[in-house]
């Protein structure tokens, strides 16, 4: 399937994201001839193991067990344990099984949603990050997909070229921050050069870690 890079918004020190920034980012996509197509939505859920009140959670249970649903794969659900470099693609009915098993429960659920733009052979998704229960904007994500290619190695320079053009367009808007792309080591997750939705799931898990770290840093600065 076509490859994509997932970016997260890194605000400058001392600043936070707001919905005005989201509007600016959307306008930036339109300024490079992006055609708004429709809405998209992904969800990410943190799971915690269920123990009786008198039991302590053993140390070896991972604290970063994530479940992700992606719009391009409505019949699939993705599990990631980032610390152990595990990613798994399951049928979406696994969520029902987990409900019945009650061994892991949802701790926090986040939604990534926004608009999709077509730019020729590129497809962009601009999305806000918010807890599922509220509209509280916690971050901004950007997906850049290059449709003709599936190999990450062969497409690297093209995506770099796009980022250059994107950064040029963004710099005209003088926003206090920038989009960052951190490429996970896909090989550690057992993934190959050929792009799949599992790669997307791993990228979202990485973005999540970055967002959490950014929030924690901001909190530390305030304290």
């Amino acid at each position, binding site marked *: *399937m*076509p490859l994509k890079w997932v970016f997260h918004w890194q605000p400058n020190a001392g600043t936070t994201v707001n919905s005005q920034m989201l509007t600016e980012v959307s306008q930036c996509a339109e300024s*490079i*001839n992006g055609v708004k197509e429709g809405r998209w939505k992904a969800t990410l859920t943190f799971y915690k193991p269920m123990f009786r009140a008198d039991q302590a959670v053993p140390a070896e249970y991972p604290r970063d067990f994530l479940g992700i649903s992606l719009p391009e794969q409505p019949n699939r659900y993705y599990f990631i344990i980032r610390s152990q470099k595990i990613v798994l693609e399951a049928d979406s009915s696994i969520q029902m099984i987990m409900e019945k098993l009650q061994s892991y429960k949802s701790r926090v659920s986040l939604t990534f949603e926004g608009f999709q733009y077509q*730019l*020729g*052979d*590129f497809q962009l998704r601009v999305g806000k990050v918010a807890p599922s229960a509220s509209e509280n904007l916690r971050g901004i994500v950007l997906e850049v997909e290059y*449709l*003709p*290619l*599936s*190999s990450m*190695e*062969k*497409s690297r*320079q*093209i995506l*770099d*070229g*796009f980022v*250059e*053009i994107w950064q040029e367009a963004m710099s005209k808007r003088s926003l206090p921050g920038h989009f960052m792309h951190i490429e996970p080591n896909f090989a550690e997750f057992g993934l*190959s*050069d*050929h*792009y*799949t939705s599992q790669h997307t799931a791993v990228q979202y898990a990485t973005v999540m870690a970055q967002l959490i770290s950014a929030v924690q840093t901001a909190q530390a600065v305030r304290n």
Partner: protein
Amino acid sequence: MQQQQTQAARNPTSAESTAEAPPKQVALAMDRLAQAARLIADVRLGADRLLEALFVSAQPHQTTKPLHLFLKEDSSMRQHLQDLRTIGILALKAFTDQKRRFFPHLDDGLNGQSSASESVPKKHCGSQISTVTQQEELSDYRTLSDLLMHVEKDMPNMKIFTYQRLDWLKRASTLPCSAEEFLMDSSKEHDFHISNKPRLGLLGAVAADKVAVIELLFPSIFRAIISLHPAGSIDPDAVAFFSPDEGGSYVHARGFSVYHVFKHVTEHAAMALQYFLGTNTETALYSLLHWIFSYQTLFTEPCSKCKRLLSMDRQSDLLLPPVHRPYRSFCAIKSSSPQSISSTKNQTLDASHAYHVGCFSEEA
């Protein structure tokens, strides 16, 4: 133009000095063309009737009526095809005569002569050396098998497959748009074709003369399809580029990719093909294959003019990599040519130049 034509009609000997063919011959040619078109229509109709007769005869409780129908159509089809062949031979002869008479410079590639108009620029090749080398190579590459075997050595990383026309259509429809094919071991690619032998080298002489489609695959970069006409010849008549992940019945030498980048490359390739055919039909396929090979850098080579990889094309408002590779001064001379090693190296560098659509027109 009107005056020239009238003058030519009055004075046949002076027609050689004009650029226009005499009107009478043109009218005759048009008339024959119309005849050929009518014959082709008759052949199509006959084929339908034959199929109908076969269908009817497959039904139970039939008389000998379908058999008579079949025999009647068979003989009239044979007559149509014979007439078509006759017209075709006449047309080819007439065309060759006229071409020799009015466009003598189009034979330049072989005999090294140049004319005032439309001379092929040879500045990168060195005219004497290149024509000698081209003539040597011509004798090497008279058959498709020879040509492809030599080309395979010149072009590592590019996989070449050959097909009969129908076999390619079957293959194209099975080409997945998903990841499965590429997660398979490349050695297994040969296994799931229906009746196709992947490499020409493995084909016997019998199958080689039925080859009508050449597939050039740069894994993860592009797939190019060339059509040969007639089958088994070294005469390309169409070429198209596609994403390696595309599949479907539209993936053929006259089809268009759904992706803009490959659509643009295909349009440019059509012009390159016409140029190679116009310069020298005997080396056209060889040049085309080498020119296609230069596209392995489609997603990595920045534009030689603006030095960027991606650029917004003003005409189409699309972000595109450099989709143009020069073909006018492209010479696919073997690097093992002894006389011109250094000039070959220079020309190889020139051939690797790439241009965006907007940057190319100024360089042509």
